[in-house]
């Protein structure tokens, strides 16, 4: 089990898509993302 968790985290940390957050393409918003954001913060 611990080995599996380590493997999961290793894969996670190696996910380049996750770490390319400053790319402007990241802010092309999905319509469901927008609704979720508004459910949390909008008025």
């Amino acid at each position, binding site marked *: 089990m611990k080995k599996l*968790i380590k493997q999961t985290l290793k894969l996670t940390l190696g996910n380049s898509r996750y770490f390319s957050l400053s790319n402007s393409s990241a802010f092309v918003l999905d319509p469901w*993302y*927008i609704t*979720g954001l508004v459910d*949390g913060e909008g*008025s």
Partner: protein
Amino acid sequence: MCISKDSKRPLGYVITVAFEIALDVKDLDTLKGLQSYFGVGGIYKHVGNMMRYKVSSTKDLTNVIIPHFDKYPLLSQKGADFEILKSAIQIINKGVVSPEQLQALVNLRASLNRGLSSNLQALFPETVPVKRRVIPFVASSLHPLWVVGFTEAEGNFYIGVTQDAKSKLGVSTRLRFALTQHSRDEKLLQGFIDFFGCGLYAERNNKLAGDFKVNSFEDISRKIIPFFCKYPLLGSKSLDLKAFIEAAKIISEKGHLTKEGFGEIERIKAGMNKGRTH
């Protein structure tokens, strides 16, 4: 929706409607993303370090904002606020507002967000607040990207450090992921248990809010972190998630039980959430 006195108007009142969302200035790019997506509205300075995206033109609300939320409906009880605002805009779009329509708008306003101000209550004693529809929670409606957006707003990635006499270092370290909302959305928060396949719901002591929480390290490592790697956060909270993942990696390797590893976790924790300076 705002109803305020204006002697220049035929009925003596001006009615303004708007859709807005306020975020910390560090999430300005997210607000720009909203503006770009909708193609209408503006971004303005709000209180403190907050900025807000606002759409106040009834034409834009009618043609852009309402169709979006009709197609991608709000899942929380905020959906009832949307329905009230939509009804108000339908009245406004009819043209000149009659005294009866003005009272109908006040009745709607009385059920919107925090209700009527004491001033409006005194000016409109005949007000009967409209009944808010209870938005039913449908488990199948939880789209992964909706969950990402909701987490961007309400999620919390937390590293807890507590005194623990049994531990070699005298402290214990734990991770927690939580989603918080008004207690009226308890069913929605409980829905995350099935969605993520882990966690629990807990109402806060004040009964006003509740939390979906995941405290198990195994669930965080095997379910929560992989989910957000598949569906990444976009705003500043993604930096907290990154730090959270770094701490999880240290814990998975038992590094938190060593002086060096624990020191690293403390450093990560200090730079997260409210401790983040960029």
